[in-house]
């Protein structure tokens, strides 16, 4: 196996709300190999974003708390670092881009100001050199006329351009890992493709490892080497994209695939996953997916399935669907 840049072991992140404890992450194990792109998919509220925020230790506290687990980045447990050591990692070794570029940039400062800030902080450059670097980064992400645009405010950019600025900002310190939380969800479809292409190119050029979070299976297929399928705070399936997409083992993964409209098939009705995402204050007993699963039996209701590795393919299910072909 290649070197793992990031290893998450038994991570539990809970939110202590007035209504009760939301068990957003209930012990997940994920690893990301050096230089690869790992896609995390799942429905809203399954813990994708919380995983990302946990890696950067940015889970809002209160109410959120990482209560258990390890996050090893280059072998160092991030959860054991001091806050000031963690700040050295954020934006420098691991940086993050967010879902909504419209609100992810501070409206009252120029792009120059916001880009320089992170460059000056981590690379110790002076104002002039940092500005030069900021212009280079804008050029790299394909913003035309970067010399002039660098002094513009975020509201003077379009949504796609703002996301490019965000990416420029995230990559300006040449991080080892980029966490992209639904980077294209709020963009026009045409712009989505451009932004994804750009992330892919930059990743190859700079050798950045990417953790890509999305609920769009198409994006995962396009971008990732490995994929992790999350459900209600658990990682239910993991493996190479080709394998997970063409021979999935978990009923949830299969159901997700059946819910995608396909141009090549003349199906009248799309597959539907019945029920709703469970309330994570009172998660279902046993396998968290069992109330919505077509294959559930008594054991699913009672006992949490043990994870099982079949080569490089991980699944967490009592009734894994071997032999499925999609």
């Amino acid at each position: 196996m290649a070197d793992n840049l990031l290893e998450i072991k038994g991570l539990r992140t809970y939110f202590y709300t007035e209504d009760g404890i939301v068990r957003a992450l209930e012990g997940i194990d994920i690893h990301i190999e050096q230089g690869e792109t790992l896609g995390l998919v799942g429905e809203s509220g399954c813990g994708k974003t919380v995983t990302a925020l946990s890696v950067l230790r940015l889970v809002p506290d209160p109410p959120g708390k990482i209560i258990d687990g390890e996050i090893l980045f280059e072998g160092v447990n991030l959860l054991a670092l001091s806050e000031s050591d963690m700040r050295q990692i954020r934006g420098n070794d691991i940086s993050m881009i967010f879902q909504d570029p419209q609100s992810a940039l501070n409206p009252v400062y120029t792009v120059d100001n916001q880009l320089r800030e992170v460059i000056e902080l981590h690379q110790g450059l002076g104002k002039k050199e940092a500005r030069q670097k900021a212009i280079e980064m804008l050029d790299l992400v394909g913003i035309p006329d970067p010399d002039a645009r660098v002094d513009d405010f975020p509201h003077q950019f379009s949504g796609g351009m703002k996301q490019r600025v965000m990416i420029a900002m995230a990559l300006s310190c040449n991080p080892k890992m980029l966490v992209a939380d639904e980077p294209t969800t709020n963009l026009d479809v045409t712009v989505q493709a451009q932004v994804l292409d750009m992330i892919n190119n930059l990743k190859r050029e700079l050798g950045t490892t990417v953790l890509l979070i999305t609920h769009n299976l198409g994006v995962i297929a396009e971008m990732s080497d490995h994929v992790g399928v999350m459900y209600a705070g658990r990682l239910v399936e993991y493996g190479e994209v080709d394998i997970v997409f063409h021979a999935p083992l978990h009923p949830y993964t299969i159901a997700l695939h059946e819910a995608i409209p396909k141009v090549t098939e003349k199906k009248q009705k799309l597959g539907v996953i019945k029920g709703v995402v469970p309330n994570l204050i009172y998660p279902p007993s046993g396998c968290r997916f069992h109330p919505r699963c077509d294959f559930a039996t008594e054991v699913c209701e009672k006992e949490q399935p043990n994870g099982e590795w079949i080569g490089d393919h991980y699944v967490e299910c009592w009734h894994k669907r071997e032999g499925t072909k999609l």
Partner: protein
Amino acid sequence: MGMREYILKRVILIIPMLMGISFIVFMLMYLMPGDAVDLMLALQPDTDPAYVAHIKSIYGLDKPWYIQYFYWLKQFATFNLGSSFLSGRDVSEEIGARVVNTLSYQLLAVVFSIGVAIPAGIVSAVRQYSKTDNLVMTAALLGVSFPIFFLGLMNIFIFALILGWLPSGGAHSTVFLGKDIPHDFSYYFDYLKHLALPTLTLGLASTAYNARLVRSSMLNVLREDYIMTARAKGLKERIVIYKHALRNAMLPVITVTGMQIALTLGGAPITETVFSWPGLGKYFVYAIQHRDYFVIVGITVVLGTLILVANVLIDISYKWLDPRVEF
């Protein structure tokens, strides 16, 4: 539209607004029974009516109010506010002697309020539901609940009567009254001591309100994505709060401060009466009691101008705080 034209437009608009304000005040003044002459002669009811009519005609008080307004307006066009019926001196002179007293504690109160409310609000927001937060918010709730005259009386009771640190009213100690008083350090220090309680009273009331406002505005901003972006950059929490959050959180605070200037200037009569403070507010009450028409309108126009200018300044500061604002 550029900044310069915008400001020019706003300044020009002050003129019709002042005309409107003065018109309304004129109308209201003449709804009050009696005029200055009636009141002066109230204790001599057997004065010859012909003489009274003669006096009134000298001042133009026998004309209908709108005619009087027209005369006033003509005078006002040459920046002449007329003269006081009571003292005989120019209204502008009378106002000039008092306007500094009013502006001094009003401005200090704004500075005090902003200076205390911003740090208190920030601490409250950053440590939401902590003991500090609860303490600040309880104090703020008390502050907004007390009417200003009550706060004033409490302050006099505590600082002037019990502790004896500060004078309870007036602007100067008696040794500094009269002619040929040297305006040296002790004179100004004495003035500052007198200034303290009106400033504190007015300041506390708006501090309480502003602290709550800063807190809620700050809480909203802290939930914004760009705050997460700032943290994800590895910035220190101090920079996240004071650079990225505070400036955005200040926008509603500036709006409200602008409105508060109108409120507190309008509240000057109360504050100044409580502290026997020789400013425009107290003079305004006196002028109304004695139907000193030109003084009433004069003070209204001056206060109105101050409020309108303050609002222009507030609007300009928006642009300075938030680049998205277009004029």
